[in-house]
């Protein structure tokens, strides 16, 4: 992978060098003359011909101006050709200066291509040195890279093997960058983790053994029961008192074992009820909604409910509230006070009307089956409401308290808080 990249880079550099040389070859002999500049020189000399001594060079060229007899009239600098022959030797450009009367003199444009040649040689040298430097840097970088990716990780591997041999299985083998050893490193590390796994498995097997013992103890109950049954038969049919005592002793001990085992795995079965109450944990916030819905005449002002988690059956609790409000509507038909408090392990909801209450002697019977107060003679009803409500509350671990309050009959529903039963 990296190797490919390296080769690619090398190739690219090679191609770059080739194209640099190609470019160099093509530009090397591009020393054409700038005819526009030369024209400017010629034209400016021509226009200044009559006062050539004040002529100024406005071009980037060097030139010499000669008159018709070959005398130097103007030079842009020293060391320029001063005669036609010198100009020919130096490959200078020689042009006529013309006036209305025809050719009046010559202009010699200096040829500076030798200077250009020196420059281009320097350029060549620079290109070669640069290319060599790049190649050197690349090779150096690659050998450093090889050291870091191959030699160093290999040394690391040695250290790893030592620590495995020493029994230290917790230190993972760090993967080398680029994963140059690939499967080799991986499988080495897999070996380490497999070893570690084997150790863990051993520990687990020990734990399971203990569990098995516990399970066996449970299975003891069955044989103990058989022992007990057999002993009872033995006691019944044994003739000697001593034998019977022995059997009785066995029976007692078997009972003892059984009790112990039963204690271990005791399970209580709830009595099956016709109306199932399934209390669950719920947030107390739901109560205000339930009260709102029970109080459909809006006789009461529902106070805020303290935040807590209660243990109740939502459906049954709603039925309890419905029943109490319905009773109040039926018998008192006044405004209703609702008070909600947190009391010890209960959330207490006290619902009191302003109907004056019932005679004190009737209070104890109100929650009984088919009992109705004296004031209920002309009102429909079976006398089951408060009885069922009371049952529900008991099922939920709470209580329904009926009493005469200050203004009328007060029903206090105590809902147990979660986690208190």
């Amino acid at each position, binding site marked *: 992978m990296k190797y490919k990249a390296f080769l690619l880079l090398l190739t690219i550099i090679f191609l770059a060098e080739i194209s640099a040389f190609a470019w160099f070859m093509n530009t090397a002999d591009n020393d054409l003359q700038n005819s526009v500049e030369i024209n400017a020189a010629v034209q400016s000399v021509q226009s200044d011909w009559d006062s050539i001594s004040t002529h100024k060079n406005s071009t980037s060229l060097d030139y010499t101006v000669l008159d018709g007899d070959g005398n130097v009239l103007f030079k842009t600098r020293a060391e320029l050709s001063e005669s036609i022959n010198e100009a020919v030797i130096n490959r200078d450009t020689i042009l006529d200066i013309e006036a209305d009367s025809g050719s009046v003199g010559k202009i010699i444009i200096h040829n500076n291509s030798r200077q250009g040649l020196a420059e281009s040689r320097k350029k060549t040298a620079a290109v070669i040195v640069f290319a060599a430097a790049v190649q050197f840097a690349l090779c150096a970088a690659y050998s450093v890279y090889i050291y870091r990716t191959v030699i160093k990780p290999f040394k690391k591997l040695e250290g790893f093997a030592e620590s495995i041999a020493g029994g230290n299985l917790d230190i993972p083998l760090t993967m080398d960058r680029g994963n140059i050893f690939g499967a080799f490193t991986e499988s080495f590390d897999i070996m380490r983790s497999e070893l570690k796994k084997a150790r863990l498995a051993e520990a687990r097997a020990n734990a399971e053994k203990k569990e098995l013992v516990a399970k066996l103890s449970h299975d003891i109950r069955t044989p103990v029961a058989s022992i007990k049954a057999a002993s009872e038969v033995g006691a019944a049919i044994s003739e000697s008192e001593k034998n019977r005592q022995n059997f009785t002793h066995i029976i007692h001990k078997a009972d003892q074992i059984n009790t112990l085992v039963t204690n271990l795995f005791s399970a209580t079965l709830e009595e099956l009820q016709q109306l199932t109450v399934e209390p669950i*944990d719920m947030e107390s916030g739901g109560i205000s909604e339930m009260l709102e819905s029970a109080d459909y005449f809006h006789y009461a002002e529902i106070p805020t409910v303290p935040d807590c*988690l209660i243990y109740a059956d939502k459906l049954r609790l709603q039925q309890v509230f419905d029943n109490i409000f319905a009773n109040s509507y039926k018998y008192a038909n006044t405004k209703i006070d609702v008070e909600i408090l947190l009391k010890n392990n209960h959330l207490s909801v006290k619902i009191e009307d302003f109907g004056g209450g019932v005679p004190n002697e009737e209070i104890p019977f109100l929650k009984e089956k088919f009992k109705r107060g004296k004031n209920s003679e002309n009102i429909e009803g079976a006398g089951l409401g408060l009885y069922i409500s009371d049952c529900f509350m008991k099922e939920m671990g709470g209580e329904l308290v009926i009493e005469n309050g200050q203004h009328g009959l007060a029903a206090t529903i105590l809902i147990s808080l979660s*986690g208190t039963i």
Partner: protein
Amino acid sequence: MKNTLIKTERLSKSFSSGGAMQHVLKNIDLELYKGDFTVIMGASGAGKSTLLYALSGMDTPTLGKITFGDKVITDLSSDGLALFRKEHCGFVFQQIYLIDTMSVLDNVLAAGLLVSKDKKALATRARELFKAVDIPEETINKFPTQISGGQAQRAGIVRALINSPEILFADEPTGALNSKSGLDVLDTLTSFNEQGQSVVMVTHDMRSARRGNRILYLKDGIVMGECDLGKYTPNNEERHKKLSEFLTRMGW
């Protein structure tokens, strides 16, 4: 008389999954005291970690109130809680949770620089702590994936303590470690506690629980009972027995 550090009133926490409500904590009233090594025990699913995260302001309870010192943290916004945490709490997690892309030291400093701007003092304190937890200097510049689990967890403790929190919360700190590393971590916690650091630790491992001086047993979201073990001393048979009895009574 012990100083109360954290007080909860009818603390409840519920989760809903797929419409069904699950109440993990139920009306918990609890006080935690300064200087204690409080251990919260219980079977898995009993709500131990939930309680821990609620106490530490990592999570907001559904109902109820938590007072930290004289500050009610249940009223704070999520950013307010973040500020509270960085000021007052340190955390050690079961999964350690060091950030993999940062060196061990940087993990610690990332927590420290939140509170203090004095880099030098922080680095010095970090080095002291690393020394105290027995992590050598050359390890602290490694990455979390390059060190062993025990070392990582001890680094986690350093991170938790870098800001000298009033209380250190540890969630099953030995859960992901082998027994030897686990012991090291417990020793570290114990020694910091001896220097006065309040610690609250959740565990379901008796060996870890033994380190606490106050054991709370959580079951089905309520505190079933608690047990005062007194100060930890190594190889104390009586303590051990007392704890075993307590746990048996709790139905461990």
